[in-house]
């Protein structure tokens, strides 16, 4: 029978981790995601599945514990919020450079600096462009409901392990804090040590049996030619991810002349905005990227051929809009791409979104034709 509950997004992250066979969680308290570790500590999964939960002394330590544990072949994760993710970014670069799988959750709050504890999407660039130093990418999933907060824990781990690359759930304080109905996943057993030896024995630091050579988890390569080869391999992997792992949702895009593009919390606002705009007679649809890296370029290119315009709706100063412009440019289209957003922890209202759409595309709406740049 389905296990359906009313839960907070942050609590669900913890529950989903236990149920998907996660081996370890290392974290540090920060609002608005502290319930993740609190829920885990209350649930005491070490008595149930053997999952380790440890409160680290800092986000820096937490991500390095993840690096160590992931390097030993275990399925491990951490969660934090914006300032904490900045601190973890060096570690994420090492994890990507050493090609280790792990899951990192960013329950975003407004920045820059200490900023605010209210929800934000201002870490889009940080998440999809790498964040730390060097050429690397995080597989970035953007849930828009508590149900997806649940589903993406398992999916994030699956993709991270498949590509030996860190995956990130990029969510925000609104989704972390709000309660919704959620159908919890069934329990999956953790891998046993012999299973880990068998599956990941070619690279994991499980302790070196006499039967194999030593494994060295490192991102250091002193020889430039070799380091370039590493980089080329990473880039090839990222292209494969772009080819195979794009996920998105389209809502009323079939006949749409104007496409709202939004992820996470702002996509929920946009669902309502589509309804309001349609009542006004405007043919508006919504494209909701689910994976932010890989970015759903192909569907944007398709939509660019028939749409009058795109409006990127974000809770930041306009970050994803750059990726939309790039996709439209790659499609050889001249359709206009605009941005509307609120910052500082403010969630835009559906009315504001429709108003912005009408204002920014007033020329197109008045004349009923596409205007080029």
């Amino acid at each position, binding site marked *: 029978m389905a296990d359906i509950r009313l839960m907070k997004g942050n609590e669900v992250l913890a529950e989903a981790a236990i149920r998907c066979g996660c081996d370890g969680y290392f974290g540090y308290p920060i609002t608005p995601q502290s319930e993740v570790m609190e829920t885990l500590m209350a649930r005491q999964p070490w008595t149930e599945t053997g999952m380790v939960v440890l409160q680290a002394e*800092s986000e820096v*330590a937490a991500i390095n514990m993840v690096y160590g544990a992931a390097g030993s072949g275990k399925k*491990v994760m951490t969660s934090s919020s914006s300032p904490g993710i900045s601190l973890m970014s060096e570690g994420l670069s090492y994890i990507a450079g050493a090609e280790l799988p792990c899951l990192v959750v960013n329950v975003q709050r407004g920045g820059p600096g200490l900023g605010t504890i209210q929800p934000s999407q201002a870490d889009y660039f940080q998440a999809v462009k790498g964040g730390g130093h060097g050429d690397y990418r995080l597989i970035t999933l953007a849930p828009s409901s508590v149900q997806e907060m649940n589903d993406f824990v398992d999916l994030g781990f699956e993709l991270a392990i498949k590509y030996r690359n860190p995956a990130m759930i990029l969510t925000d304080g609104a989704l972390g804090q709000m309660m919704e109905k959620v159908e919890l996943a069934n329990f999956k057993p953790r891998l046993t040590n012999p299973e880990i030896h068998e599956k990941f024995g070619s690279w994991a630091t*499980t*302790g070196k049996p006499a039967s194999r050579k030593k494994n060295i988890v490192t991102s250091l390569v002193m020889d430039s030619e070799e380091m370039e080869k590493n980089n080329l391999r990473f880039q090839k992997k990222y292209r494969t991810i772009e080819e195979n792992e794009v996920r998105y949702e389209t809502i009323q895009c079939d006949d749409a002349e104007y496409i709202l593009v939004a992820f996470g919390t702002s996509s929920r606002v946009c669902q309502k905005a589509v309804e309001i705009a349609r009542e006004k007679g405007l043919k508006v649809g919504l494209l909701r990227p689910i994976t932010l890296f890989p970015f759903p370029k192909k569907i944007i290119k398709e939509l660019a051929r028939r749409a009058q315009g795109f409006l990127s709706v974000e809770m930041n100063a306009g970050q994803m809009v750059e990726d939309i412009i790039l996709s439209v440019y790659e499609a050889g289209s001249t359709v206009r791409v605009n941005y509307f957003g609120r910052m500082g922890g403010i969630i835009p209202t559906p009315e504001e979104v429709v108003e912005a759409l009408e204002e920014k595309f007033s020329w197109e709406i008045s004349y009923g034709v596409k205007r080029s740049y």
Partner: protein
Amino acid sequence: MVLKDLIKPENLVYGKSKVQEDVYMHYCPGCSHGVVHKILSELIEELGIQEKTVGVAPVGCAVFAYNYIDIDWQQASHGRAPAVATGISRMYPENFVFTYQGDGDLASIGAGEIMHACNRGENILVVFINNGIYGMTGGQMAPTTLEGMVTSTTPTGRNVDLNGYPMKITNLMAQLPGTSYVTRQAVHTAAAARKCKRSLKKAIENVLAKKGTSFVEVVSTCNSGWKMTPVAANIWMEMNMIPYYPLGDIKDSVKGGHIIEK
């Protein structure tokens, strides 16, 4: 009789541990790292723990430690080796996990991680190579650089008003209840190296017995960074380093137990 007639198993008086890789080391001639690597390799072999040992290499000269000892290794970012070791050790409580860190890595950028790993009593061994200088980056001041000591960032000598004081971080770690065995050793003479080996053996056995954190400082030379010959560096270390960083056990207790200051 020619040399090759003498090469027989019964004539063997000294050999390299099988756990030590048969490769050239990148360390400078006279550097203490090689001796400590040799001791660790011997102990891993003697205790029969090669299959359950995982080392964590630091940032610094010993970043390449993984090239020299035939065990699984992870290379940590600068100063974070104790956190990385925590992650591994918590996942495999039966394994023997150790960090190998220099003074810049452990006492400067990694001061937070080492303090908290020791405070939690992580069941790991910390090998702390203290040569009072940043070797890898070209001889800059470290937290452990002695007062008046010339480095590339203290060209007129360490001035405590400007740079603070040489840090006895090993004594600080001994204050934390999570550590069970804290000692300071050296490897500049055969006698010192033998004593250091005994200490490291005890430290490893403590970890295998799950007694909490064992911390072994090795007061070391960096003759290249100190701009001395290996022999002169050993003499300088005895005359200057060891009086400030005296050798011997600082704590030999149990996790949660009290410090025995000597």
